[in-house]
């Protein structure tokens, strides 16, 4: 079973931004906790408060940003502009492997 679908942003940020649509998303807190547990990269955390809706950011500087909480069941993955194509491919593969591990039925 496909655990998620991914679509590139077709607009201005084409090539930079990808949206992940999770088939059976866990709740936000569980998702974030699972991501943080498994990610061994030196990520910077951040938050935005949209009228009470919390957006959680995980940033690997000059490589990518992952944004949780923008829409239910969705995660945004955004490359940084300076990341070279090879790095982008490898970073997204890393992210998708992590996502698969988190979402796979136990």
């Amino acid at each position, binding site marked *: 079973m496909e655990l998620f679908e991914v679509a590139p942003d*077709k607009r*201005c*940020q084409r090539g930079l931004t990808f949206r992940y649509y999770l088939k059976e998303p866990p709740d936000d807190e569980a998702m974030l906790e699972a991501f943080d547990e498994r990610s061994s990269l030196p990520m910077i955390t951040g938050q*935005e408060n949209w*009228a009470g809706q919390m957006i959680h950011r995980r940033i690997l500087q000059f490589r990518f940003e992952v944004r949780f909480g923008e829409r239910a069941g969705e995660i945004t993955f955004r490359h940084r*502009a*300076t990341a070279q194509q090879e790095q982008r491919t490898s970073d997204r593969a890393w992210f998708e492997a992590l996502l698969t591990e988190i979402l796979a039925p136990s």
Partner: protein
Amino acid sequence: MSRKVAPLQRRDHGRTHRAQEPLVFHCNFYNYWLQKTLLLDPDLEMERVLHDASAAAAYASLTQSAKDLGADSAEERVKIAEDTFADQGFGTVQLSPLLSEKRVIDVPVSHYGKCLSQAITTDFGQPQTFMDAGYIAAAAAFVWNHPVESLCGKILQCQALGAEKGVVELVDCAEGRDWKPACGIGPGGKEAPPPPNANTNVDEGAILQALSGLDLAGDEEGLLPRFGVMLTNHFGNFYNRISFEFLHKMNGTGLLEAGEMLLQDAGYRCGFHTFGGIMESAEWDAVVKPQCKTQEDWVHGMVAVVNALGWGVWRVVELDDQHIVMRIYDDYESTGWLGMYGQSDRPVSHLATAGVAGLMNTIYLGDIQSKPTLDLDYYAKVFEIDGAFTAEETKSLSMGHAYTEIVAQR
């Protein structure tokens, strides 16, 4: 992220300032279409105007920033200049060579170098980073304590032409340069804006409060991806200088109205891409859409967001599906004109005029609620619709009226 920058200040009438220089948010689509218009005729030498407008605004901002932050040393000034460039979404500029009086400066990431291309489907035929070059000239003058008009930035490499990084060389400028300093905050209108139109389900105050939770500073690369576009928190005086100097050059050629029409075209595209992008964004879905019950609410909601962009205070006076009357208090185009040239004899708020038309067409004809893909084909389709809204500036702060008024109808 901690940066050495002067704080942003929200002032009266919806204006935002940093170190007494007005800032306005604009996206890469507007930046591209505006610059494309200005560069149409190479004999106008608008590259120099772009450069100098950037240098003037940047120099004013940086020197006041140093005073506000109590920064005296050259090292501190380099940091302020680098951090201001990044914070405002222009990219990354490496200015440490200035400390050893070197004159070749790298720009590893540039909004103008990398992000304008997302608005087009072809290649660039010339460099696009005149704004960067002017900023670097200003930064050098700021760090070295030289007169700002004595230095120019010469573009050696530009990412828009495929270079891996931008490179700018500082050169001494020719004598007899027609230097115009930035005009700062500029005179504003005396009339206070009324409260938002109450004939809506939208709560503008709540929306502005919610938007204050967004991180609208450049990321660690100095870029500002948001709402599906790349934003810049740009110098209002830069936009005004380049737009109005272009019109001055058109004056007397029989092409003044044509020039005004193209400035409006850039504004219309901004209305489509930026407003459209905002209305399709997750931020809109979270903060504004829950309050919207009618198409008119979408207009009021978008106007609430515009009032966070530093453009002045927009107020909907009349609205239905056939027409809108918008009044703008201290629109940045008028205050800029007044600050630079004094009273105008014709309307000057071309961005605002087209923005109002673009907003109405996007909502009432573009079916933005269904989240169409906002590409060139879709833009053309909406633009060509018979009976689209057209807008006219019926009053202008720049002409001595109490506010700027724009009427759009179909």
